[in-house]
């Protein structure tokens, strides 16, 4: 069975409508509310601050630590609160995806804490988290090489789709989801995961489509960051 048309009428390489807002939290150094379709993510950045326990400290460069948390009301069935296997793994992955972009050599022994809260989940939460977190890091004034942008690619049936939603993720005809994170300026990949089956050619195609699509996300992130300061600038 072939997947001829997407459920919400999007083109196969079309993203869901996005909204990015920075500076939403007063107490955090930097923050971002990132929405992609129905997926809604809030990120806050704190630090750099001293890292405890001490044995985790790296005297060469700082550490990025991420806390990914899903609210119990973020999905239609109640999600049991608290970090489980999935949450801990995703926290690690998000931190790893952000690390190459932040100039951590300026803060040896220190830690930059990134808190990501999933308010509403409709697939692609780790990608939305990475986008929100990197925008929040930039908003915090952290020295960075680039802003990380991320898109949830997928192979639904026999089609390569960009930014898949929950319905497509559960598609009976076979769904493979490939979350990818890029540094848009250089096109370097900072995160690449794959769940399902895909041929090497299709994977290459998915990556190249993703590389083009993150530029759209990057523009939105950039717009949100500059809009905070533009305001009524004369």
């Amino acid at each position, binding site marked *: 069975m072939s997947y001829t048309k997407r459920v919400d009428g999007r083109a196969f390489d079309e993203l869901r409508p996005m909204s990015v807002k920075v500076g939403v939290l007063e107490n955090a150094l930097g923050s971002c509310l990132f929405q992609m379709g129905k997926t809604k993510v809030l990120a806050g950045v704190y630090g750099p601050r001293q890292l405890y326990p001490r044995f985790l400290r790296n005297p060469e460069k700082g550490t990025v630590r991420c806390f990914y948390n899903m609210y119990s009301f973020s999905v239609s069935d109640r999600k049991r609160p608290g970090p489980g296997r999935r949450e801990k793994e995703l926290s690690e992955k998000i931190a790893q995806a952000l690390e190459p972009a932040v100039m951590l050599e300026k803060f040896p022994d220190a830690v930059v804490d990134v808190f990501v809260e999933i308010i509403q989940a409709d697939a692609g939460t780790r990608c939305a988290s990475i986008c929100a977190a990197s925008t929040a890091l*930039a908003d*915090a004034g952290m020295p*960075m090489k680039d802003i990380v942008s991320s898109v949830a690619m997928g192979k639904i049936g026999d089609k390569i789709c960009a930014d898949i939603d929950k319905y497509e993720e559960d598609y009976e005809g076979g769904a493979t989801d490939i979350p990818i994170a890029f540094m848009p300026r250089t096109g370097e990949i900072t995160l690449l995961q794959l769940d399902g089956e895909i041929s090497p050619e299709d994977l290459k195609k998915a990556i190249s489509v993703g590389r083009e699509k993150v530029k759209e996300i990057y523009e939105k992130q950039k717009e949100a960051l500059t809009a905070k300061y533009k305001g009524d600038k004369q």
Partner: protein
Amino acid sequence: MDMIKDKEIVVPGQVLAKGMDFIPSSATFRDGEDIVASRIGLAQVKGRVIQVIPLTGPYMPEVGDVVIGRIVDMNYNGWEIDIGHHIKPFLTVNDVVPKFKQRSSNFDMARIFNIGDIIRVTIIKAAKNDIKLGTRDRTFGRLNNGILVKIPSVKVPRVIGKKGSMISLLKDFSGCRIFVGKNGWIWISGDSDKELMIEKAVKLIDKEAHKSGLTEKIQRLLGIPEEDIKRMKESLLEENSEESVADEIQKVESALPEEEIQEKKPKAKKTTKKGDKK
């Protein structure tokens, strides 16, 4: 060749200029042929030199910075001081009190500095993982009976203003003693209602630092009559009459580069000290 415009807001990772004709300065780096911004801020093009003036961000200590700190911990050997940086420098008691005084039977460290005290101190070493504080300096000492306001350290030049204009405006208006630490911690001491007024003004400067017409906004906030605001503006323009008026206004409003601030700050401090003695 695409080039960034002067005073444009840039985000990290944004290419500011292409080619080897330009030199990257603060908050920028070179990647191959491109000059790239590394922090969110205002781009500044000065001939061939391109730099970014950060709009926010963590405090990066430098040697010679006069900062305001708070004592957060104390042991038999000295005090740990929070200066708004992830490293909390340690101030040894031997640096502060001579040995013979320490031997005295009624010597009490807590009477010199206690936990929670606000002190003013100079940074004499600022390595990546080691910060040392100087004590042989007239700036060193405890600050009593005041309030502490914290703003991002990058906004400090706007609180001081061009040739110290903003800080002297605040001081003249309120009669408060104000010390602005390079780390963005500001200590205000005076009448309690005036203190709160200055706090409000500082918060406004923090919020509107990148916008123009800041001095007037502060003057209005402080309730200075309109005529005086006009007169002050005119006298400011007269002083710099050789340059065009529009240019000058822009210059005053743009964030100041680092080297200008350092010259200014000691002057501002000295004037307060004189005032205190009287």
